[in-house]
C-alpha cells in the first residue's frame, strides 16, 4: 500500500508504463472508465483553449498533463464533498458536474444545470480558501455522525498561504474527515516549486501538523486512486485527515492569458512529456489487453462528440437572465437593492420579469 511519510513517490505504473505496484481492485470496465475520463479531460481542456482563442469563452486554465487528477474524485461517493480550484474541472466532471455547467460558468451564466447533489462547491479562484471550507465541512459531517469525507484540492503555490497551513492544523486538531490534496505541478504561474517553499516536499507539512501524509505520482492515475481510496477509508472509519501531495506537471500555460516560454525551459517540458499521464495509462491498458487501438479510437470519437454536443448546447442558450444576479446577494434583497435592480435593468434595456 502507499508509503506513508516516506521520501519515495508512490507508483503503480512507472514512467515507462511498467507495472511496479498492485493495481486497485477494479473491474476492467472501471479501469477503461478512468481512461475515458482522462481522455475527456484532455479533449475538453484543448477545446476550451481553442474556444477562448476564438473569443467564444472566457479566460481558461488548461489542465493538460494533470488528467490523472480524476483519481482524486473517482473513489469518492455521492455523499462526499469536493472543493477544488480552477484546475480541478476534470475531478468535478467525475463527481457529476455536467460539462455544460462548467462551460456556462466560463461564459457568465448562472447554470441552471449545476446539480447541488453532486456536492461540489464552485471552483475557487482565491487560492487556498477552499481548504478551510473543506475542513469546516468535514467537521460538520463528523458532528452529524455521517461517514463522509470532504476533499479539497489546491496547487503547490496555494500551499504557501496561511489558509492552507491553518486548515491542516484544524484538520489535525479536530480529527476532521478531510483529505487535503496538493496538485504539485511544478509551477505557480512563473514561480517554480522550489521558490515556493524551502522544504523538499509539501507532504512534509503533514507530520508537522499531526496529519498523515502521502506522496504520490500525480501522473499515475492508479496510484492516485489507491491513495485517495485509502485516505477516504481512514476518514470514514473515524481516523481523521490526510494530506496528499501529487507530483505532476502543468504542460500548458497557466491560463489562456499566459505564455510559459517566457519563464520555463523547454527541456523541462520535454522531460514531462515523457511522463504524460494519459500515454502512460493507455500503454498500461494496451499491454494488459484491456483495450485495443481500435477501441481507443472509438472512445476518442465518442468523447469528442460529447464535448461537441456540450459546446453546441452552450452556444444555443439564450442570453443569461440578468435579473438573477440581484437575487444572489442576500437571502432576501434589501429595499436599496430592489431599487438598484430596477434602475440597472432599465438602463440596460432589460425588463424586470
Amino acid at each position, binding site marked *: 500500500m502507499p508509503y506513508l511519510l516516506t521520501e519515495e513517490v508512490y507508483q503503480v505504473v512507472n514512467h515507462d508504463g511498467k507495472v511496479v505496484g498492485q493495481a486497485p481492485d477494479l473491474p476492467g470496465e472501471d479501469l477503461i472508465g478512468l481512461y475515458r475520463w482522462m481522455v475527456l479531460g484532455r479533449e475538453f481542456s484543448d477545446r476550451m483553449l481553442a474556444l477562448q482563442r476564438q473569443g467564444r469563452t472566457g479566460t481558461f486554465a488548461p489542465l493538460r498533463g494533470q488528467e490523472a487528477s480524476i483519481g482524486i474524485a473517482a473513489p469518492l461517493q455521492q455523499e462526499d464533498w469536493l472543493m477544488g480550484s480552477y484546475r480541478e474541472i476534470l475531478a468535478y466532471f467525475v463527481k457529476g458536474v455536467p460539462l455544460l455547467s462548467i462551460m456556462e460558468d466560463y461564459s457568465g451564466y448562472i447554470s441552471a444545470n449545476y446539480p447541488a447533489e453532486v456536492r461540489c462547491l464552485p471552483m475557487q479562484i482565491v487560492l487556498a480558501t477552499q481548504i478551510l471550507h473543506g475542513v469546516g465541512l468535514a467537521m460538520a459531517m463528523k458532528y452529524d455522525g455521517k461517514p463522509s469525507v470532504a476533499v479539497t484540492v489546491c496547487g503547490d503555490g496555494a500551499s504557501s498561504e496561511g489558509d492552507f497551513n491553518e486548515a491542516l492544523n484544524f484538520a489535525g486538531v479536530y480529527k476532521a474527515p478531510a483529505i487535503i490534496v496538493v496538485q504539485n505541478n511544478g509551477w505557480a504561474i512563473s514561480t517554480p516549486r522550489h521558490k515556493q517553499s524551502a522544504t523538499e516536499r509539501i507532504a512534509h507539512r503533514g507530520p508537522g501538523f499531526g496529519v498523515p501524509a502521502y506522496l504520490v505520482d500525480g501522473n499515475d492515475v492508479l496510484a492516485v486512486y489507491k491513495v485517495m481510496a485509502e485516505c477516504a477509508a481512514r476518514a470514514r472509519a473515524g481516523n481523521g485527515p490526510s494530506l496528499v501531495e501529487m507530483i505532476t506537471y502543468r504542460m500548458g500555460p497557466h491560463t489562456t492569458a499566459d505564455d510559459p516560454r517566457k519563464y520555463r525551459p523547454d527541456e523541462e517540458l520535454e522531460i514531462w512529456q515523457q511522463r504524460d499521464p494519459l500515454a502512460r495509462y493507455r500503454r498500461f491498458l494496451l499491454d494488459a489487453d484491456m483495450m485495443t487501438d481500435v477501441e481507443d479510437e472509438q472512445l476518442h470519437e465518442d468523447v469528442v462528440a460529447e464535448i461537441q454536443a456540450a459546446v453546441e448546447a452552450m452556444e444555443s442558450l439564450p442570453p443569461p437572465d440578468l435579473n438573477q444576479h440581484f437575487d444572489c446577494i442576500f437571502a432576501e434583497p434589501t429595499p436599496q437593492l430592489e431599487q*438598484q435592480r430596477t434602475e440597472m435593468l432599465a438602463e440596460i434595456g432589460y425588463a424586470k420579469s
Partner: protein
Amino acid sequence: MTQNGNREITYLEAVREGLILEMRQDPEVFLLGEDIGIYGGAFGVTRGMLEEFGPERIRDTPISEAAIAGAATGAALMGMRPIMEIMFMDFLTISMNQLVNQAAKIRFMFGGKASIPMVVRAPAGSGTGAAAQHSQSLEAWFIHTPGIKVVAPATAADAKGLLISAIRDNNPVIFMEHKLLYRTKGDVAEELYAIPLGKADVKREGSDLTIVAYSIMVPRALEAAEQLAEEGINIEVVDLRTLKPLDEKTIIRSVSKTGRVLIAHEAPRTGGFGGELAAVIAGSEAFDYLDAPIRRLAGRDIPIPYNRTLERSTVPQVEDIVAAARTLAQEGR
C-alpha cells in the same frame, strides 16, 4: 517628444519609470510581490526590472499575501522602503491584519518612535471581465483606517509623480492603479519629479458644475464634460489624486464657485468615499453656495458580475456621468 522633454507614455510605463528612477537613487527601495521578477507582474508593470536590479531588490515571493505585507512592514521598521505589489487589490483582504492592525498602528503603539515607510501597489477596479474577486475597489477600507494614506492617480504624469512621493513618505501608502488606466497614455517628463500627496488637481475648469472624481472616473468625467460642453454646460473636473489626506480646500473652492457638485467613484455606493466627500462639502462654506443637492454616482451595491453587460452597468460609465450632470445642471433653476 513634446515640449520640455516630455514624451507620451502609458500609465503603466509611468509607474514603472517612477519605480526605476527612485530605485536608482535610493538603495533602500525594493520591490516584493508575486511573479514580479521574470514575469514582470500580472500586468507587466515590473517587466525588465529584474534585469537591472537583480533578485534581491525585485523579490518574487511565495503566494502569501499576509507575509508580503508583514515582511514589508518589518523591513520598513528597519529603515528600508519596501514597495509591495499585490497581484489584485482584492487580495489585500489577506494582508489586512498586517496593514490595518500593524503597519497603520505601529507608529502609534511605539509612541511615534517608529515609522513604516512602505508603499502598497494595488491594481484595482473592474472592466476587464475578471469578476467579483478580481475587480474590487477597496479604498474606503483603508481611508477608514487611521495611519494609512491612500493615493489613486488618474493620469500617467500623476502616477509617476505621486508614486515618487508615496515612496518617500514615512507612512504606509496604498497606491491604487486602475487596471483600465494602465494602457492610457499621457505626457510625462523624463526626469525624476515628485507630486506632493494631499493635493488635488483641477483637470478642467468650468463654471456650471463640479465633478469630484479620482482614478478611472477622471477620464470618464473629462469625456462627459467634453460632450456636455457641446450642450453649453461648462463643467469643472476636480481630480482628487490623493484620497487621504484629502485636499478639502480645492473641493470647497470649486464647489463654492460652481454651486453644483457631482461626486463619482467606482466603488459601491453604500459606505463609499462619496459619502465622506458629500459630508465634507455639506459641512463647509460651500454649502451656502449650493444651488442643488449634492449628487453621487457610484458602483451599485453588488459584487462585480462576470457577465460583461452587467459588469459595465455596475459602475458609472461616461453616459451615466453625462446623464447625471445634465440633470444636475438643471436642478434648482
